[in-house]
């Protein structure tokens, strides 16, 4: 379906999948003979993986494990993640079709499966090492330390060194260093290729699939679900079947010691999409969840801002043409266009609208709020006028409480799981003993903790903050009217605020310093920082990230004015 190569026989691009997992041309029914491997999404221990050079693989090893390849491991991970997403409400198509095919395509492209020569050369090199006759042609065996240092994941020098020293005496095949067959090869060979599969990349795959299906889940939502534990990531290898033994270098590949960062996952996704030669993604139209109008509505609700602001966000979106399908839709490989982070963009639009209406210079918004308060006293009909001051108090209170709670939860993360990890068989008993002690101590102090510790995961929810209009304490601002801060001019309601300040006069060159702007809290008004902090919390990204996007939106909005006048102070009239 998404396979774009031309058929060898009829030159058409019209592919389907056989039951055996091979591509066949629908026009001429030419079945590609290329695929020899069958990798099911379910790992059945009876499956025999055949490669051209290797032959049948052995079933059982000494410890009751069987041979497995790294890519099989990742396949399992993806499967688990897809299942979790399905449980969260994502359509099953994602798991059964989209993600599956993306993965197969990836395997094909990286020559790990579905193609003629899966990593054959290096496998040969291995067997050469064993025989003593080919000493001269033997490729130099990389030292283990070298291998370990090649891995991108952050490691602990001590563990690496101790591991390397314990293994250095081993001169047998490198499969001793890892549970997987190709663990060491994986780390060594694929270094040069930027798209070696890693754990964070599994999330890039997931997001890519979600985006293809235009599911109502943003990347920040996805990452939040990961951190909350609804989507397996941290110790996902727990779910590997018993026979898939994981140790040694596998740990470098499958164990994570940090939560994935938005930028990383996003950028990798772009690289991946281009690498897989994917065509233009399905269009993001204004009925899609990811469209700025929709996302703005959601975030406005979550931020407890008046619904009326939505009119303004739509106006901004329209004015700077970011609601167009061509702008929003992902076209892999298109370097001329800046790619869209839907959630950050929507947040930025809201911030800009708030600046338009309230200026947010630490003075005007408060004056305006007092003014609205005055008008509110005489306001008998309809809903109350929105007062910035009141909103600020309510939000600040909630935000501080939630932030504090989040910080405490983060300090309480448990990174280890019941399934112990060890680098080598020698270390196994030591690791197990340690684990036992840890469990004992945890129990001992857990009892002294006082209240019962319910290991509750928060129920997965799209909204982190919610406000109800039924609350009589007036803490919900959705229905408030903006009339208190608007004025009538020529029959139209416009903002009373005539001024605007730009976050930055000139955008940086992203390629040079990696950012479009540089945000320092002290350089900007506190109200502005507060608003950034709010969205930073909701999206779980750094405020500077949103700030960058705000700069871009502003520059689009005031483009004409910026182009006209070369000299500028950072205030300007609309």
């Amino acid at each position: 379906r998404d396979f774009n190569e031309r058929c060898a026989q009829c030159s058409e691009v019209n592919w389907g999948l056989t039951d055996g997992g091979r591509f066949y041309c629908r026009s001429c029914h030419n079945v590609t003979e290329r695929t020899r491997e069958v990798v099911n999404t379910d790992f059945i221990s009876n499956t025999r993986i055949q490669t051209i050079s290797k032959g049948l693989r052995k079933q059982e090893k000494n410890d009751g494990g069987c041979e497995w390849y790294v890519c099989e491991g990742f396949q399992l991970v993806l499967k688990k993640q897809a299942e979790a997403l399905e449980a969260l409400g994502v359509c099953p198509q994602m798991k059964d079709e989209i993600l599956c095919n993306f993965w197969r395509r990836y395997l094909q492209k990286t020559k790990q499966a579905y193609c003629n020569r899966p990593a054959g050369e290096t496998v040969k090199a291995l067997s050469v090492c064993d025989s003593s006759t080919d000493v001269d042609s033997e490729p130099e065996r990389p030292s283990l330390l070298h291998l370990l240092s090649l891995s991108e994941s952050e490691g602990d020098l001590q563990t690496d060194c101790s591991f390397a020293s314990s293994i250095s005496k081993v001169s047998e095949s490198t499969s001793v260093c890892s549970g997987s067959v190709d663990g060491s090869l994986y780390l060594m060979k694929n270094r040069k290729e930027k798209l070696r599969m890693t754990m964070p990349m599994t999330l890039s795959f997931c997001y890519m699939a979600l985006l293809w299906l235009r599911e109502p889940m943003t990347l920040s939502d996805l990452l939040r679900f990961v951190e909350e534990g609804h989507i397996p990531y941290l110790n996902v290898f727990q779910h590997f079947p018993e026979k898939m033994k994981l140790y040694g270098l596998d740990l470098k590949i499958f164990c994570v010691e940090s939560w994935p960062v938005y930028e990383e996952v996003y950028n990798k996704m772009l690289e991946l999409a281009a690498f897989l030669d994917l065509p233009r993604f399905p269009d993001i139209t204004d009925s899609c969840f990811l469209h700025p109008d929709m996302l703005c509505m959601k975030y406005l609700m979550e931020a407890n801002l008046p619904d009326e602001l939505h009119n303004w966000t739509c106006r901004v979106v329209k004015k700077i043409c970011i609601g167009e399908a061509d702008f929003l839709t992902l076209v892999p490989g298109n370097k001329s266009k800046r790619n869209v982070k839907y959630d950050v963009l929507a947040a930025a639009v809201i911030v800009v609208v708030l600046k338009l209406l309230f200026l947010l210079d630490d003075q005007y918004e408060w004056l305006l709020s007092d003014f609205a308060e005055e008008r509110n006293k005489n306001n008998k009909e309809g809903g109350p006028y929105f007062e910035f001051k009141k909103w600020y108090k309510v939000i600040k209170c909630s935000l501080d409480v939630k932030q504090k709670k989040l910080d405490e939860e983060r300090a309480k993360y448990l990174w280890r799981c019941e399934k112990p990890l060890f680098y080598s068989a020698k270390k196994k008993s030591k690791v197990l003993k340690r684990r036992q002690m840890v469990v004992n101590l945890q129990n001992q102090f857990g009892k002294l903790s006082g209240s019962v510790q319910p290991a509750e995961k928060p129920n997965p929810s799209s909204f982190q903050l919610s406000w109800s209009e039924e609350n009589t304490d007036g803490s919900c601002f959705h229905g408030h009217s903006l009339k208190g801060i608007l004025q009538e001019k020529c029959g139209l309601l416009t903002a009373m605020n005539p001024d605007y300040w730009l976050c930055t006069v000139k955008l940086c060159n992203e390629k040079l310093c990696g950012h479009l702007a540089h945000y320092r809290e002290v350089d900007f008004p506190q109200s502005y920082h507060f608003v950034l902090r709010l969205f930073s919390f909701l999206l779980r990204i750094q405020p500077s990230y949103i700030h960058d996007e705000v700069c871009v939106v502003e520059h689009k909005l005031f483009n004409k004015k910026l182009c006209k006048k070369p000299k500028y102070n950072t205030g300007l009239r609309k």
Partner: protein
Amino acid sequence: STHEYKLNFKKSKEMCLSYIQDAMLQKQWKRAAEFLTFYIESLEKDFSTEYMGPSEMIWRIGTEILCHHSHSSMKEFNSFIEQMKTLGVKRYLKVCLEHAFHLLCNGLIDEAYQNLSLAESWRFGEQTAIQDKEMKLIQAYRGLLDYYSWCKQKNVLLQHGQNGFEDLSVEQEMHGCFRKAAMNLKEIIKIPGVWDLFVKCYVDLLEFYGDHNEAHQVLNEYAYNSKFPANPNAHVYLYQFLKRHGESKKSLISALKILHDIVPSHELMIDFNIMLQKSKKRKKRRLGLEVIFAALDYAGWKENVKAWSCLARQVKQIVISEKHLDWIKQEWNSRKDWWPAFHFSRYLAKRNWQENESLSYEKALVAGILLGKDCKYFKYVSHQGCKAQVKRFRILKKFVNKHSPVYLRMSG
């Protein structure tokens, strides 16, 4: 690319640790225990490259929490410490030692003894040599507990002796304890350090068994060996020993000399002054005056009648003999700017008179001589005294009046 704000294992545990510390500072033991529970898994990544790794943190924090938490028991504490002992070989003896302290603080002397004995027999390759200092301490404390047993048995014997019983087995045990204690205590006090308790006990043992020479030598070493840190108590112990054994004044004086240098405000300065005053040697008497003036520089002595009477006696004696008035002048020189306000204010005059007549008498004598008959203190007290018709104040008044030219000579 590395993002500084990336939340990883290390950062997460650092945050956790700061929560623990906050809770402990605020004595919220339940909360501290809660966060410690989440910190504990850093043991599985303990690489001891930092100054203080997770295992030491957990040992120390866990100990604090278990000490203070209302629900924790000795049994729990012991089981916790046993686990800590297995965690770090390099720290094994330290943990044992602190465990023993803890047991002692809770009155579990026998358990402490067992622990120390067990630790003494520990061997672990080159670690044994590396942890030599801790081993010595362990042996020393075990020796101390042996001494403690010895004391108990001694008391039992004495009691039995009074009642006319004889108890051979107790006596043998007592001697056994002595040997064990003496051996260990002797070892530790060889190492430069502050070992007041060990020294005292060892000397006690030696004295009981009549080995005065050894005891004297030990105390000398402890006081005079320059490798040992300056320790006032060392000199006190030596002095007390010498006094017990009726040594000459000369040796007593030399024992206290250094004490005066280190701690001029020491309570033994009175004894020192009395000895010095009585000496036939001029230098010693001169020193005596210096000593008593120096002691009274300290606020803690302000209301000490004995001290003031010493000073008064010596000053009076000098004035009467009319010899060595320059001594007083020398001592007074550095004090005349502040002693009046410090000791001889009108307020103090009133208060001293009201609270302690003897104190005011002695002070008035000194004031009268140092500051003349017109000084506030003397005037007030002598007036009050005469008014109350207390005989000695009349005599005092006469005396000061008679010797007032002395003052003039001094202040000139």
